[in-house]
């Protein structure tokens, strides 16, 4: 027993030395159980978010108003699914199968980004989701490219490339709507009014209320804190909104100075955390709808997966 403990202490020291030296942790490396657990939770949550996130955008595929808009939306949703695939693969390197992750999602044991529990109600929502939701996601994911777990970090590098295209196409939709008719402008403002706060909530609770932040930062899974990332996003996004004539739905917004790059920094109202926790805990407008959709599609596809597997087994016997 004593020997094992000493052994573990030695392994932990090696692990921490790698983290300090910015050497990536790989699937076969020893890692503390809590590190593995944290990654299993975080990467699978990230994978589920990509996949569930296909639904609100999917709500507008059949009504996309031009050939170009439809192509872009289809391609974007396909990218999100592809990100889900990379992330499930990264998560599987931690010794848990995709089937198991999906089962945990269906049982409510695994979560996905709460923002996807809000509905996509008009065409400008497709713009707002790309611009604000993907924009918030990128702010977080850019920092995750340097995360300490190798497979997760490499997945993030690929994902970030595509996400920046998503953000631009979202902003382009908003820009076009603001150049358009009064109805289009009304839709665009309505969309930012509804998506602004959920997008800010995506960064998670204040650091002081985020129980898992300290270990995750120590192990360099997380490279920047929730509040810091949120500020970055706000500073970047407000000028973009103003440029095309949109108003952020926060009357308390004011410039409080410039950062080192000379960019404005803003003060803003606090987030409605009661709403945040309520949606996280299942009481958002679409929580039930999103999960039920995923469960239904998965159940309806059971015979197809069984068919493919049976056919594969039979072909091996031949």
């Amino acid at each position, binding site marked *: 027993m004593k020997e094992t403990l000493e052994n573990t202490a030695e392994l932990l020291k090696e692990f921490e030395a790698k983290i300090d030296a910015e050497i990536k942790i790989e699937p076969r490396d020893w890692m503390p159980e809590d590190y593995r657990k944290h990654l299993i939770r975080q990467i699978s949550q990230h994978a589920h978010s990509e*996949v569930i996130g296909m639904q609100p955008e999917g709500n507008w595929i059949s*009504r996309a*108003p031009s*050939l170009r808009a439809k192509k872009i939306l*289809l391609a974007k949703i396909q990218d999100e699914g592809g990100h889900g695939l990379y992330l499930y693969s990264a998560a599987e390197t931690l010794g848990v199968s995709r089937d198991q992750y999906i089962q945990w999602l269906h049982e409510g044991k695994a979560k996905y980004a709460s923002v996807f529990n809000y509905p996509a109600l008009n065409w400008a929502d497709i713009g707002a989701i790309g611009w604000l939701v993907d924009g918030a996601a990128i702010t977080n994911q850019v920092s995750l490219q340097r995360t300490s777990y190798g497979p997760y970090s490499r997945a993030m590098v690929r994902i970030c490339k595509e996400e920046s295209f998503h953000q631009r196409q979202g902003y382009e939709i908003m820009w076009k709507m603001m150049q358009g008719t009064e109805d*289009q402008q009304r839709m665009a403002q309505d969309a930012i009014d509804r998506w602004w706060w959920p997008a800010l909530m995506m960064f998670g609770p204040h650091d002081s209320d985020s129980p898992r932040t300290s270990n995750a930062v120590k192990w360099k899974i997380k490279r920047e804190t929730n509040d810091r990332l949120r500020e970055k996003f706000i500073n970047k996004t407000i000028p973009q909104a103003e440029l095309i004539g949109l108003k952020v739905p926060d009357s308390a917004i004011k410039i409080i100075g410039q950062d080192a790059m000379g960019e404005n920094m803003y003060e803003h109202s606090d987030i409605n955390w009661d709403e945040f926790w309520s949606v996280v805990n299942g009481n958002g407008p679409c929580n039930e709808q999103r999960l039920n959709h995923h469960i239904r*599609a998965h159940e309806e596809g059971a*015979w197809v997966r069984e068919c493919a597997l049976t*056919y594969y087994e039979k072909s091996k016997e031949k």
Partner: protein
Amino acid sequence: MEAKVKYYLEIADNAFILSHRLSECSSNGPFLEEDLAGTNVALDLIGLAEPVYNEAAKLNKKGESGDDLAYRRSENNYFNCLLTEQPNSDFAFIMTRQFFMDVFNYYYFMDLANSSDKFLKAVASKSLKEVTYHLKRSSEWMIRFGGGTDVSKEKAQKAVDSLWKYTGELFTASEADLALRESNVSVDLEAVRDKWDQKISEIFYLAHLKKPENDYQMLGGKSGVHSEYMGFMLAEIQFLTNKYPEAIW
């Protein structure tokens, strides 16, 4: 309407409407990889339709855009085959509809790649690469259904039985098509039918599936007479352009 414009629209509408049906399957696939593959085919098909609509708009000389043709016609001016508009049910049905269309597209575009019309020739040559992959995927699924479980085989046979009556229209030439035959713009559909039939027999043999005995065939789509489903599909497709006709998206 000039024969060539009508013929272009038949090609574009087949691709656009089938693409739409496939796009409705997003987030409904049996597993993630297949979900993405379905969207991929939807994207290929809309990518096929777009230049053909644009070119048809140019030929038509009425100041319309390709988008106007895709989004602003009335139902009886869409000329897609009935097969493409059949609503999605289970995965076997979706894939069988795709398989019938993929076999057609494969041989049709192969012949159209020799068209005297330079534009169609180029579109066909480009599409062949994609269509070849589509056909590989859907024929492999047909074989998998037939050789998988009892359930999968039964579902595939049911889909074949139900969709068979829409396959004849693929080879029934419209007046526009016949008018363009002599100048070698359009393709001899009887020759395509023979190759289609042979390919179907080959894959059905491998998949242990049977051609239906009832060979009754439904026509209409190519002349603008559609199923009840078409109106609902167009109501969704045209929702924004109908509600906000002045808007540019």
